[in-house]
């Protein structure tokens, strides 16, 4: 199981807690993980990535293992500790405001 943490507004929208667990078959990538997230929680469709282009919304960031994966190719394999469920994949809103 891969663990994903969601920002508060998306928890409200999906009706979940802070952490959700997802199954991804094969070599897990960011694209496959977000596909699985949107399939399990359809209310999130379009809120993390553009529903058509699958491009990340500009004010969201993807972190894991103390690294910023936001601009890493979505088809690269996820870091091992994320794929194994040891470390979470973190979706968060960028800081804006004072």
């Amino acid at each position: 199981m891969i663990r994903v943490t969601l920002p508060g507004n998306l928890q409200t929208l999906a009706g979940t807690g802070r952490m959700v667990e997802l199954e991804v078959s094969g070599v897990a990538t960011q694209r496959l993980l977000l596909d699985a997230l949107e399939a399990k929680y359809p209310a999130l469709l379009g809120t993390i990535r553009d529903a058509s282009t699958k491009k990340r919304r500009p004010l969201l960031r993807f972190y894991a293992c103390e690294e910023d994966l936001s601009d890493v190719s979505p088809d690269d394999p996820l870091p091992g500790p994320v794929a194994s469920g040891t470390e979470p994949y973190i979706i968060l809103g960028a800081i804006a405001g004072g």
Partner: protein
Amino acid sequence: MSRVRILVGTRKGAFVLSSDASRKEWKVDGPHFAGWEIYHVKGSPVNPDRLYASQSSSWFGQVMHRSDDGGKTWETAGNQFQYEGTPGPHKWYDGSPHPYEFKRVWHLEPALDDPEKVYAGVEDASLFVSKDGGTSWSELPGLRTHKTSTDWAPGAGGLCLHTILIDPSNHDRIYAAISSAGAFRSDDAGQTWRPINRGLRSEYIPDPDAETGHCVHRIALHPSQPNVLYMQKHWDVLRTDNAGESWHEISGNLPTDFGFVIDVHAQDPNTVYVLPITSDQYHVVPDGKLRVYRSKTAGDEWEALTKGLPQKDCYVNVLRDAMSVDGLDPCGVYFGTTGGQVYASPNAGDSWEPIVRDLPAVLSVEAQTLA
């Protein structure tokens, strides 16, 4: 016995306020969608328990919800708004061409005869319709592709289609207003449109009486006189008696004719409400006094309504979708402020009381009268 439900959209969630016909004791339910910016919540006139809500976030984009139990529970609706074809440009703030980009839904207008049908006015300005309860949305591109649209430019809030009115005597006649393009009318259910801005005069555009380019803030009508429309423009309050063919100013003795909201009494089509705001540079009520102005003469002659409203040290704004009337007699009038107060008058504006005082900034207020 009749009841009243007030649907309130705020910067940080939606609230449902409810009361019996006395409109003295209120139940406050919410926040729904806590943390989301709720531009508008509106119920179907056919089935008042069918509500539609528009949530928007700079981070997470556009989300839509519907409810079938008057807002107790909600389900996700469709949030895909695709312009037809390859959209052309509109003018940017600096006058340069700027491509159309969908940003958010400002206003929802459920159809008068079908709870599954709802119109959405969006930014960048266009009109969409859903015929399946908000699950899927189709653009009615005739307005966005009007020959004048490449010259439309956004107001400070964006290039938004914020007002949709359906003529209750002819559902094919639809009015829309765009900041800052002006007012438009369709007589074929939204397929084709023409500007209806004759008589408007706006000194902030190069040609003050141009066909389009006017920053119309709000339009209202009374069902018994659908050819009579009232308009709060950026500056000026106006009326048309011929479905928008020509307008004339009715600002009369208002302390300032800048403002956002305008609405019409539920029983008397000649009684109109506005809430003057100091100026376009200073978006607060004048002189620290929160005053609704009422005209019983279809404009020109206005009286200040102050009983129960703060008359000193008040510096709030009231945004364009944040006033509504119920259908009871005497008519209830409601408005919400950027300071988070929602005020109610159960007697057509003679006196006011706050229903709630400390909500997030109010973006929209819609009153429903329930059997």
